[in-house]
């Protein structure tokens, strides 16, 4: 089942017990029990390094940025722009101008749809999505379809949740102007062959937008290597604050795109007759930005980089293999995530209990998992289920967390039998 998954290499210099001490939330008890947090795919916990950076921003270095000539404003501007450069290096973008701060991946996709899409897509143009997209990568395109009469087509998956590359490739034609596909499915954990997807789409002249929310916390992503046109992700899933995310886009595309919102910071000069827009990246960042969020985001990247993906990746892959092995000892458990290539996420259902029942019982033992449709109803429909229970891993999870989950699932069977 996981033959193509990278075989877990014991990360010798990865001391997860020490790493857990960086996360204050793990020092508390839930209903008197230790917290077993297996919902990082929804939002990750924050290390004290991130909290400290946010605290420092407000307590010692706070002022509005990009405006003041005075000391505090200069310091704040520097730190905020340093974060942009950290993100640029983190994903190996060509320039900080290609890093647009947004509220999160959802806003990033809406920005591309409303700015690039409205300008460059016309009636009959096709946008290819995949069956396992998050609603955030479906609805903005439907809104655009209703406005511009574009056509949305959906690349299929098989019943093991593998992305069907050949079928996808067959859908490509000159009419396809955009392919918008996830890098790792949030509902299933499937890793899509994103490099091949991008190459194939470029062959027919289509642009590619990648939803990288689940990929960026788990693996190194390199914009030069991938050659994605747009790549979006959120800070809060990468151990950073909520309310801040990134739109990466190639500079030439950003230059050709009209601003998304109007306001302060995105202008060079304004008269009632004419407004001249600011240069990149500020052209797309109207209004006072999420200053502390941006700075906290930078601290999160420093943190993840200090641990290294060469360690985080194998640690999480090893845990996923361990979980796959253990979870199948649970009677009546149906694994929905069965793709050949997966990361960090396992979705499942149980014969005896609804996912909400599962989640409620696990909660009593301090175990946090996600239950529901994971904002991906089309993929739930594909498997003919209303919802799943989903565990998702973070860099701080341990085999003990998995053991507790599995014990909890045995308890679910006991209670509902």
């Amino acid at each position, binding site marked *: 089942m996981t033959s193509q998954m990278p075989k877990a290499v014991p990360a010798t210099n990865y001391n997860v017990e020490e790493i857990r001490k960086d996360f204050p939330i793990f020092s508390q008890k839930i209903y008197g029990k230790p917290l077993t947090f297996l919902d990082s795919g929804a939002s990750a916990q924050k290390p004290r390094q991130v909290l400290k950076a946010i605290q420092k921003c407000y307590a010692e270095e706070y002022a509005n940025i990009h405006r003041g000539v005075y000391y505090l404003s200069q310091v704040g501007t520097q730190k905020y722009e340093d974060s942009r450069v950290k993100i640029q290096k983190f994903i190996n973008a060509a320039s900080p101008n290609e890093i647009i701060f947004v509220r999160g991946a959802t806003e990033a996709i809406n920005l591309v749809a409303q700015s690039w899409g409205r300008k460059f897509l016309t009636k009959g143009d096709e946008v290819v999505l995949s069956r396992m997209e998050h609603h955030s990568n479906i609805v903005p395109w439907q809104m655009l379809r209703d406005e511009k009469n574009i056509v949305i087509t959906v690349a299929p998956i098989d019943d093991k949740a593998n992305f069907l590359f050949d079928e996808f490739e067959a859908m490509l034609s000159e009419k396809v102007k955009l392919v918008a596909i996830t890098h790792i499915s949030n509902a299933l954990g499937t890793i899509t062959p994103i490099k091949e997807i991008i190459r194939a789409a470029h062959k027919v002249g289509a642009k590619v937008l990648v939803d990288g929310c689940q990929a960026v916390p788990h693996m190194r992503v390199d914009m030069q290597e991938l050659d994605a046109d747009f790549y979006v992700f959120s800070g809060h899933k990468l151990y950073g604050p909520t309310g801040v995310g990134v739109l990466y886009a190639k500079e030439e595309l950003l230059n050709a795109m009209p601003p998304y919102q109007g306001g302060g910071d995105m202008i060079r000069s304004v008269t009632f007759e004419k407004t001249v827009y600011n240069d990149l990246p500020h052209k797309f960042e109207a209004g006072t930005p999420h200053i502390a969020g941006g700075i906290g985001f930078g601290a999160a990247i420093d943190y993840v980089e200090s641990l290294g993906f060469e360690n985080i990746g194998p640690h999480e892959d090893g845990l996923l293999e361990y979980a796959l092995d253990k979870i199948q000892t649970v009677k009546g458990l149906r694994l929905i995530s069965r793709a050949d290539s997966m990361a960090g996420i396992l979705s499942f259902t149980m014969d005896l*209990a*609804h*996912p*909400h*029942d599962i989640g409620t019982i696990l909660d*009593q033992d301090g175990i946090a998992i996600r239950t529901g449709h994971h904002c991906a109803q089309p993929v739930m429909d594909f498997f003919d289920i*209303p919802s799943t229970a989903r565990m998702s891993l973070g860099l701080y999870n341990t085999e003990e967390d998995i053991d507790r989950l599995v014990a909890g699932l045995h*308890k679910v069977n006991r*209670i*509902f039998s």
Partner: protein
Amino acid sequence: MSETIDDVIETFDFLEDWEDRYKYIIELGRALPPFDEKDMTEENRVHGCTSRVWLIHELVDGKVIFKGESDAHIVRGLVSLILMIFSGKTPAEILTIDARDTLDKLGLEKHLSPMRTNGLFSMVAKIKSIASAYAGIPAAE
């Protein structure tokens, strides 16, 4: 339905372990009268619940009889509690009942996620608006 909400409160006091309380709620759900599959329509859905919940109603001798269903066991048990509180009462009675009070007495609020609690309260809101319609007065929202 033979069990009343007062019986439930009494049993809850007696059961100290959360696991036993949940088992009891599940039992209450299992005891709900069967719900016709043809009534599981979009129109009868109660939204705001994280699982799927359906509610139907009819007026018999001036009293509103509710029937409910959910695809999750625990939620079906909670639906059963709500029906104990509201079903078989006159529209005027229904409009004066404060369900929050009863659920607080059961100590359920601390064992229910806010989302599911919201689901319960959207169910109560739906019941109240049905009662308002039967009473011929606009729903107070």
